[in-house]
């Protein structure tokens, strides 16, 4: 009984932190300024987001065949997701997409609004 509670709590913690990283990755994809920087946020969902969710499911499944299969999925993701990221970045670089370099700061919404009002 207590073991089941521990199992539930641990898997819940893994699942929640995984969802947090996936959400943060989605926010990052929307907020960051250009293609290359957005890829970093997408990589976050690939690594910790997906791995934590799969770990949580593994804890929930216990020592069964299902958790072995989940482990294989986690391993496959661990190997293939960086390869896919590299392929996309390499393709963009070959196509001549110039990265945004130097310091960047998110524009202040109030200032943007004020500027827009002035322009019109």
């Amino acid at each position, binding site marked *: 009984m207590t073991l089941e509670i521990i199992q539930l709590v641990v898997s819940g913690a893994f699942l929640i932190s995984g969802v947090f*990283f996936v959400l*943060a990755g989605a*926010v*990052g994809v929307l*907020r*960051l300024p*250009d293609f*290359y*920087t957005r*890829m*970093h*946020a997408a*990589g*976050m969902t690939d*690594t*910790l987001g997906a791995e934590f969710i799969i770990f949580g499911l593994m804890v929930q499944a216990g020592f069964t*065949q299902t958790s*072995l*299969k989940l482990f*294989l999925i986690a391993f496959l993701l*661990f*190997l293939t*997701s*960086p*390869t896919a*990221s*590299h392929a996309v*970045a*390499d393709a963009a*670089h*070959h196509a001549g997409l110039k*990265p*945004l*370099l*130097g*310091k*960047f*700061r*998110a524009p202040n919404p109030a200032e943007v609004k004020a500027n827009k009002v002035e322009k019109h």
Partner: protein
Amino acid sequence: MRKSAAILLLVLVLYWFTLSGYFDHTVLFVTGGLSVLAVVGLAARMNILDDETTPYFRFKSIGYFVWLFKEIVKANMAVVKAVLSPDMEISPSMFKVKMDHGTDLGRTTFANSITLTPGTISVEMEDGEILVHALLEEMTDLEGFKEMGVRSGKAVADPMNYVPKLAAKPKATKKRKGS
């Protein structure tokens, strides 16, 4: 080659049992065994049974995975903090990292480790160098890359600083740049 074949056979049998879960089905058992043998036979015919296609498990690699996972968690925290903060102060940069790995497996491990760590992506590979795009200023630290390079080389038993004999190699493998 015989060692690689034995390892591939063992891995495939374990893989089959993991995915199917059947232990008492004679027909499935026999067909599963036949397909495993067919795959090993085809791999032998294609001449791809070597250390690179069957990278067998080393205990050193487990240590590397643990270290890499720690680095990934650390980098994730930094990227999450930068992305979720209202100001979002980032300084994207592109720079080259030296790479001393002698084998393709070592190079792939190193480049994949860089890409797996959020905040750094390996964009292009050239001879002995990787072009890296970094999101934050704290990730441009070359010492960190050096450590990762040494550790990843050790994990796959890579002969570091080894100069490949280009004349001995077939031309098809030498031309990797444009791929």
